[in-house]
C-alpha cells in the first residue's frame, strides 16, 4: 500500500480507460481530448518511474504540441460524428481478436521473462546526465533526429499549403 503502488494503479487504470475512450469514441473531438488525457496520465506514470525529464518532455511535446495539432486537423477536416455506413461488426471482431492475441503473447513473455524487482526508490539519470549523454554517446541519433525534424517541418508546411 505504498504511495508508488497507489499512484501506479490509479494511473494505470486511468490510462487504459482513456485509451479505450480514444479508440471507441464516436465523436473524434472527444477522441482527441481523451488522447490528451491518456498522454497526460502516461506522463504521470513516467513520474512514478522517477523519469522526470521524460515526463516533462512528454507533457511539453505530446500534450502541448501533438494533441494541439490533432485538434487543429480535426477542426479543419469537417465531419465530427463518425457515421457508420455499413455494419462494421466483422472488422471490429477481427481487430479485437488480433489485439487480444498480441496482448496475450506480450503478457506471456512479460510474465515469463520477469527480471528482479528493482531497487525501490531508485533515481534515474538526472537531466545533466541526459544532456551529457546527448553530447557524447548519443550524439549521432541526436543529429539525425534534428535533420529529421527539419525535414518534417519543411515537408509538413509544403504539403499542407494551399496551392496557388
Amino acid at each position, binding site marked *: 500500500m*505504498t504511495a508508488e503502488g497507489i499512484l501506479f494503479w490509479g494511473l494505470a487504470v486511468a490510462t487504459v480507460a482513456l485509451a479505450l475512450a480514444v479508440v471507441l469514441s464516436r465523436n473524434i473531438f472527444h477522441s482527441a481530448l481523451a488522447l490528451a488525457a491518456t498522454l497526460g496520465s502516461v506522463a504521470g506514470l513516467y513520474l512514478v518511474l522517477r523519469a*522526470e525529464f521524460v515526463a*516533462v518532455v512528454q*507533457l*511539453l511535446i505530446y500534450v*502541448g504540441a501533438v494533441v*494541439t495539432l490533432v*485538434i487543429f486537423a480535426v477542426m479543419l477536416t469537417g465531419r465530427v460524428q463518425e457515421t457508420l455506413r455499413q455494419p462494421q461488426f466483422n472488422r471490429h471482431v477481427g481487430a479485437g481478436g488480433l489485439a487480444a492475441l498480441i496482448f496475450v503473447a506480450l503478457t506471456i513473455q512479460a510474465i515469463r521473462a520477469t527480471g528482479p524487482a528493482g531497487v525501490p526508490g531508485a533515481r534515474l539519470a538526472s*537531466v545533466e546526465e541526459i544532456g551529457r549523454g546527448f553530447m557524447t554517446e548519443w550524439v549521432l541519433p541526436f543529429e539525425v533526429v534534428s535533420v529529421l525534424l527539419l525535414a518534417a517541418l519543411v515537408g509538413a508546411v509544403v504539403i499542407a499549403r494551399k496551392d496557388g
Partner: protein
Amino acid sequence: MTFLYDLALVFDAAREALSGLAMKAGLPWEAPALASKIITASVLFGFVNLSAIFLVWWERKISAHMQSRLGPMRVGWHGILQTIADGIKLLQKEDIVPSEADRLAHFLAPLVVIVGAVLAYVVIPFGPRLWAADLNVGVLYVFAVTGLGVIGILMAGWGSNNKYSLLGGLRAAAQLLSYEIPMVVSVLGVVLIAGTLSLTKLVEAQSRTWFIFYQPVGFCIFFLCSLAEANRAPFDLPEAESELTGGFHTEYSGLKFSMFFLAEYTAMFTGAAMGTTLFLGGWRGPLLPPWVWFLIKSYGLIFVMMWFRWTFPRFRIDQLLSFCWKFLLPLSFVNLLVTGLVVLL
C-alpha cells in the same frame, strides 16, 4: 514573530503535527511528507487565486488613474471589494450552454484552462523554503503546464458552436504555441549560465548578481512572450471585444466565465513570477522577509504588464505572428548563441 519572516516555519509546524498524527495512526512514513507537500501546494494555489482577485481590482485602479479617472470607489475602501461584488454577480448568473454545443468540451474547457494556469505554482519558490516541490526540471515543467491551457482554449473555441469562438480559439492557440518557443529559448540562456533547470537552484545562483544584468535581451524577450502567453494586450486579439465579440469565451457565462477571467490573471502572475525567479533574483533582497521581496518584484512586473495594456494598441494576428517568428525567434537564437559562446570562453 519569526514566522512572519520565514513563512515556511508554518509549513514545518504543520508537517510536525502531521507526522505526530501519522505515527499514532500507524501510517507509512511517506504519508506526512506527501500530505505536507499537498498542503503547501494548496496554500500556494489559494494565495495565487486570492492574488488574482486582488489583481482585477488593481488593474481597474491603475487603468483608471492612467486615464485620469478614479475607477471603482464605492464598494469598500476605494472600491477594493469591487471584485468580490463582481464575483457574486457572476456566480448568480444563469449558466447558458449553446444548443448545438459540444457539452463535454464546453463544460471542461474552463477547468482545463484554470488547472493549466495554476499548476505552475507547484515549483515556483516564494521564499528560501516556501515551495511545494523542487523538481529537477522545474523550468520545463512550468512551460509544459502552460501548454495545457492551449488545449483548454481550443476546447472552448470548438465547443461553443460559434464562429467567433472558433476563430478566437484558433487564433489564441496559434499565438500561444508560437510564443512558447522564443520564451523557452530565451530562458535557456539563463539555464546555461546557472547550469541547472531547478527553479530553487536558479534563485540560489543569483546570490551575487541578478540574471537580468547578464541577460537583458533574454529578459525582454521573455517578458514579451509571457505577455503573449497570458493573452494580454497588446497581444489580446483572441479575446478582443471589439474584434471578435469576446473570442473563445463568448458563449460562457457565470462561473465558467469567471474561471477564464481568473485564469488570465493567474497566467499573468505566472509570467511575472517566472520573470522574477529567473531574471530578478526571486526572493533575494536585504532587510525585508523573502516572500515580501518576491511579491514586490512580481507585482512590479505585473504593473509593467498593465502599463503595456493601457498604452499600446492591439496587434493584428498576422503582425503578431510575424513579430514572433521573424523577429523574436531569431533574436532569441542569437541571444542563446552569444550566451553559449560567452559561457564557453
